């Protein structure tokens, strides 16, 4: 739990993941609007392209990291009982890890 004791590192992680999320979302929305892919096959081919797959995996990781720092901030701000705080942090962590694994499974299945 070293990240728990570091303020600067988590703050930087939040900023950097935020930048990645913003860039990825702007790119995906712009690309989706420009190409106008209407069929499932077209969408599928676009998303399983290796570059896009890696970018999306990065997006999922960035989102998990961003969510972790954000939820951790809320919990550190408002939950002052140490045992409850730890329990909540563990619950949030497990939820995020499970969501991440599920999202990566979807990616891998899509890539076939």
């Amino acid at each position, binding site marked *: 739990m070293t990240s*728990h004791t570091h*303020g600067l590192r*988590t703050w930087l992680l939040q900023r950097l993941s935020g930048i990645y999320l913003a860039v990825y979302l702007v790119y995906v929305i712009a690309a989706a609007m420009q190409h106008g892919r209407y069929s499932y096959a077209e969408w599928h081919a676009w998303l399983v392209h290796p570059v896009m797959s890696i970018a999306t995996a990065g997006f999922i990781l960035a989102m998990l990291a961003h969510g972790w720092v954000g939820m951790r901030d809320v919990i550190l*701000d408002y939950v002052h009982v140490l045992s409850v705080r730890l329990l909540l942090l563990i619950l949030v962590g497990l939820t995020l890890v499970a969501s991440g694994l599920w999202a990566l499974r979807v990616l891998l299945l899509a890539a076939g």
Partner: protein
Amino acid sequence: MKFSIYRYNPEHDTDPRMQDLVLDDSLIRSDMMLLDALLLLKAQDETLSFRRSCGEGVCGSDGMNINGRNGLACITPLASLRTPVEVRPLPGVPVIRDLIVDLEPFYRQYRAVSPYLINNDPVPEVERRQSPEQREQLDGLYECILCACCSTSCPSFWWNPDKFLGPAALLQSARFLADSRDQATDERLGDLEGPFKLFRCHTIMNCVEVCPKGLNPTRAIGRIKDLMVKRST
């Protein structure tokens, strides 16, 4: 002119209450400040308690919550306030009596940032000189009067007054980090590490909004973060 003032005397009252008070319009001049009105009200009811000293916005004694916003009563024009004027003590700190609060939590965090020059060189014959450019680095930082308006308007300070330093103390920290004569930059930055002391600041800028001296603690905190990033790379 109508006022609604927070009253609490722990010797007699079990709970605080709001007291409606009226000041005769014949007593009010157009250029009066809220402090002048409070002094007139105190003449009517001498149990009304508040701190005040210079009356010029320099000493920082009369910080209070005026119509929901922290400020100094002595430089808040009466004409700028909607009535009834609601006056409460600074929020988030213990009330001693009426508008007088216990600022010990605030001063404790101020002391925690070592708000003085740390320089281990032998004391020179003359003063420790700075170039005009070096002196300029302190502008916007040294003017703080420690009135506590900023820290007591900061939700992060309300929730964690014992762990989060608060905008006033962090502004002081930035002031000594920016000082060319200070030699403790590394120790100061090291002391600010951890998730609580500095990083409970979520940049909501309540401090900037209320500072009666027009200072910008949020920018000062940003500068500290910059220095921390540089130090870690």
